[in-house]
């Protein structure tokens, strides 16, 4: 019996623990986590492969975190069944853990298309530290030379950079016409693609992998991939980095409603009282689109977990929402991309952009009724957060939009009323 039970010890779970403890220092907390060392930074697994990070650096909290927060940590354990009527969770080993308040923060699992050849030696997914460890030991043990990365989103691009650093020849296969298509517009995407190509990476767009092929002499070992256009790409390993799908298995058969992810309100509560969900498993509020949707992003998972934790402990807190937002560091090109960056229909929108070829700088703002709803900043990102502030607070920029993308834009350019609101100076 635990007052608070949290399933998942990653971004949202850890954040929820801290929020609960801010409000309630004595209520018992149990965290059920599949991973033996849960409190590491998943976004760092590419740096792990690239040789820039190691477990100690990747830990987002110190080893005594559970003890310090008085948490009963059931690590290496899996929750397999949920009874929301009698309020208990069943673990794989049969143990029943009852709860008063439950948080489902089970995250996502890598999406892998159903194709032939997935059972061959040399096929990987890439979302956890153990995935990264498996990949590294394989590369080292077999001295792999050539990799195919499937999916040119954030994970695929970061992994490609890491593999290039390790000296592998990489072919990037992307179903969309452009790389990073969920994050960037064609201009910014081409800028990144040109840099990546200049480092010897082959980028194939508009294609997916039809099946994974074996080596002629050892058919059980990856020797290449067959693309949908019939072309073959030879490789020693293939890594699927297409994205994640919510791990909603646990709520099947309960009254908890799901769409693509678990449906939650702005207090992170599911459709069943006392059961909350946060992170990649939940459909959360997007303040730009004004609707709930999957937003599997680390900083948002932390924020959502925090909101869930507060509400579970009785401190009523509303989630103000997130949106599709990413910062990228890969291949030496700093990028910030937030919101509606590449709208298909611009009839009700206004697009401002500025480009400087010699500095390789590109900036774009998308406005709707004089409110920023999307932005891309490439190679000059220091002030990007100021624009995010304007965006998040839905500030009308009509009177100063002509200076927003000027080189001299600063906080001093903002109208005095906004500066006052931001408490910038006395």
């Amino acid at each position, binding site marked *: 019996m635990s007052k608070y039970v949290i399933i998942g010890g990653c971004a949202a779970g850890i*954040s929820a623990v801290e929020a609960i403890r801010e409000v309630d220092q004595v209520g018992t907390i149990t965290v059920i986590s599949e991973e033996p060392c849960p409190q590491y*930074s998943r*976004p*760092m697994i590419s*740096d792990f492969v690239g040789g*820039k*990070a190691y477990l100690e*650096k*990747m*830990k*987002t*909290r110190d080893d005594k975190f559970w003890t310090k927060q008085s948490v009963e940590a059931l690590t290496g354990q899996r929750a397999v069944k949920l009874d929301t009527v009698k309020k208990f969770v069943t673990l794989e080993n049969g143990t029943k853990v009852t709860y008063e308040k439950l948080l489902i923060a089970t995250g996502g699992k890598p999406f892998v298309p159903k194709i032939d050849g997935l059972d061959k030696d040399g096929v990987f997914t890439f979302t956890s530290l153990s995935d990264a460890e498996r990949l590294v030991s394989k590369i080292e043990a077999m001295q792999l030379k050539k990799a195919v990365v499937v999916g040119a989103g954030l994970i695929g691009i970061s992994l490609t950079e890491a593999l290039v650093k390790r000296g592998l020849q990489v072919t990037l296969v992307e179903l969309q016409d452009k790389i990073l298509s969920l994050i960037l517009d064609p201009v910014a995407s081409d800028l990144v693609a040109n840099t990546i190509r200049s480092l010897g990476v082959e980028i194939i767009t508009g294609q997916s992998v039809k099946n994974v092929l074996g080596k002629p002499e050892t058919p059980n070992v990856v020797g290449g991939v067959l693309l949908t256009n019939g072309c073959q790409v030879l490789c020693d390993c293939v890594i699927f980095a297409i994205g994640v799908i919510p791990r909603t298995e646990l709520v099947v058969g309960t009254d908890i409603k799901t769409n693509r992810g678990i449906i939650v309100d702005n207090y992170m509560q599911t459709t069943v009282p006392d059961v909350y969900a946060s992170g990649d498993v939940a459909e959360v509020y997007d303040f730009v689109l004004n609707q709930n949707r999957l937003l599997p992003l*680390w*900083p948002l998972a*932390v*924020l959502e977990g*925090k909101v869930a934790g507060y509400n579970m402990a009785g401190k009523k807190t509303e989630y103000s929402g997130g949106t599709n*937002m*990413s*910062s*990228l*560091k890969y291949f*030496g090109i*700093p990028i*910030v991309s*937030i919101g509606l960056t590449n709208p298909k229909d611009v009839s009700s929108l206004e697009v401002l952009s500025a480009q400087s070829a010699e500095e390789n700088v590109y900036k774009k703002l998308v406005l709707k009724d004089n409110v920023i709803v999307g932005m891309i900043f490439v190679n000059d*990102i*220091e*002030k*990007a*957060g*100021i624009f*995010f*502030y304007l965006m998040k607070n839905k500030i009308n920029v009509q009177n100063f939009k002509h200076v927003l993308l000027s080189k*001299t834009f*600063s*906080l*001093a*350019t903002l109208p005095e009323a906004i500066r006052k609101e*931001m*408490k*910038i*100076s*006395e």
Partner: protein
Amino acid sequence: MKRIIAKQEHCMGCGLCEVGCAVQHSKSKDPIKAYNHEYPKPISRIRLELNKPVSFAIQCRHCENAPCVVACLTGAMTRDEETGFVKHNPEKCMGCWTCIMVCPYGAIKADVSGKIVAKCDACTELSVPVCVASCPNGALECKEVTS
């Protein structure tokens, strides 16, 4: 808890706060050596914002609900429970720029290496932060504030 406060009316836009900050965070801590002989040149963690006649200096506000602490992917950005300042641990930073993305003041930037971020550390080793001490017109003040 102590905070550095900017006083817009007193700011002349001279930029000595930036010089002081860059020197304080240089290897030599000497202005001539730092600016002439250190490569890459040290950077200031405070930025003079100028739109004449408006000018003021901005650096990390050590926000109460600091968005950078929540957003940090690695645990490099934390709240120092003793001082209340937002601390950045360069050892843990992976230079993902997420904190830059969410800082409403644009007060975090890439450090000289371009691989991790740098921001105001409130000069906790000094009795008075160097930007405050460098200001010739009292436009920066370090004082006790209630949250």
